[in-house]
């Protein structure tokens, strides 16, 4: 098994300056590795730091301690220490993150929100839209919504746009924060299918899945975050 992602000694403390500088240690000594074609679930109660781990891996949160090693072709990059433009480059080519909520950009149509990661890799607008259309179709997003900005969509519709955006560029590492939380059973099954296809294609995945059925259907093993409190 080829390792794709490896966390070692990772720790995080939030310092709340607006509350008199109180320091809240959230995580300490996180050890975790994800191999090619493997899907690992992070488990534990709310507030234990599951999303924090995902955000540190994506470079969205600062990592205070330890290393987050990402295999990027021939190179290994430590996300915890990487310069901003290195992080941006990895997000463009190597690592995708499906967050719980879509941060919609005004005026941009759903299909273009989904196409954007492919466009950023140099794919033509027409080809990127074709790929986006295929994904949105599979995710049962009504075609009449494709040309509308997703800001006014329902939670479930926004989540499907978000999933399509996270999957379209077929990056080798995928981070998933409750990808099925707002979906009905039918669409949940589609997402499970898509995730399993990506696993077969060798994508390394780490995610939070509160739905036990989804977790059982896609994950190879679980890591309880409370081990690193």
């Amino acid at each position: 098994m080829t390792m794709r992602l490896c966390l070692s000694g990772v720790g995080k403390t939030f310092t709340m300056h607006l509350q008199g500088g109180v320091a809240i240690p959230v995580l300490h000594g996180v050890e975790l590795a994800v191999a090619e074609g493997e899907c690992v679930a992070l488990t534990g109660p709310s507030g234990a730091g599951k999303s924090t781990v995902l955000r540190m891996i994506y470079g969205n949160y600062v990592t205070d301690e330890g290393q987050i090693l990402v295999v990027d072709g021939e190179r290994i990059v430590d996300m915890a220490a990487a310069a901003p433009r290195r992080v941006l480059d990895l997000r463009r080519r190597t690592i995708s993150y499906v967050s719980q909520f879509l941060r919609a950009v005004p005026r941009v149509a759903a299909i273009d929100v989904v196409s954007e990661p492919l466009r950023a890799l140099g794919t033509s607008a027409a080809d990127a839209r074709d790929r986006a259309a295929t994904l949105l179709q599979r995710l049962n997003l009504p075609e009449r919504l494709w040309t509308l900005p997703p800001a006014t969509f329902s939670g479930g519709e926004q989540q499907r746009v978000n999933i399509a955006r996270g999957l379209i560029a077929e990056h080798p590492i995928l981070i998933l924060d409750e990808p099925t939380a707002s979906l009905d059973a039918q669409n949940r099954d589609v997402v499970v299918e898509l995730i399993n296809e990506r696993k077969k294609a060798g994508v390394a995945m780490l995610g939070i899945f509160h739905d036990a059925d989804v977790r059982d259907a896609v994950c190879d093993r679980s890591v309880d975050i409370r081990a690193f409190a």
Partner: protein
Amino acid sequence: MPHHTSLDNDTPLLRASGVSRFYGSRIGCHDVSFELWPGEVLAIVGESGSGKTTLLNCLSGRLTPTAGVVEYRMRDGTVRGIFSMSEAERRFLARTDWGFVHQDARDGLRMTVSAGGNVGERLMAVGARNYGAIRGEALDWLERVEIAADRVDDRPDTFSGGMRQRLQIARNLVTGPRLVFMDEPTSGLDVSVQARLLDLLRGLVADLGLAAIVVTHDLAVARMISHRLMVMRGGEVIETGLTDQVLDDPRSAYAQLLVASVLQP
């Protein structure tokens, strides 16, 4: 973005080292250092008086720093200190390879010249002489910034605020600059007009692979158009990093206060 270039063997487009500007004993900006690469958009945020506009003016050669160096990589690959070149060279650079989008479009446009003339004038400044080609290019750019072709002969003083700002952007981008400075480009506009302009800017910056330095007091604007963020206060850089990282995990007391003070609709 220059997606296909390797990160390892390129050099920054602009490098600021220890840039300071004092007004007598008062600090405009103090000891600012950073590097900007092609295709990157850097937002400088802070409240009024934080020194962000002073810094922007120093970086763009409009104001001479009291101390420090601003270096720019020219099209031929040589790196030049922008304050060690002659005034004429610096002005040529500003006219050709740089753009400057002012908060008030009246500072960046000639209000008594037609829209087409405003765009064509920049082209003529870089040596274009063929009237048909200039007009064609101007029309093309007006279309890209969503100004109808039948307004090309109208003067910008007949335009709305949003249209003027879009015209100012066309005037700046027509010469194919590699770096654009923007000073509060969307403030003073209605929210819907602002969204349209931001969307347009985002698209142009990505399509053209431009580097940009954008001064704004609006964190939502910074989130939408920038890759990197620099938070300033009292002339000092308080915090810097990836835009989403600084906004979602601010480290300093001041950045935490700024982020916590944003009204959510």
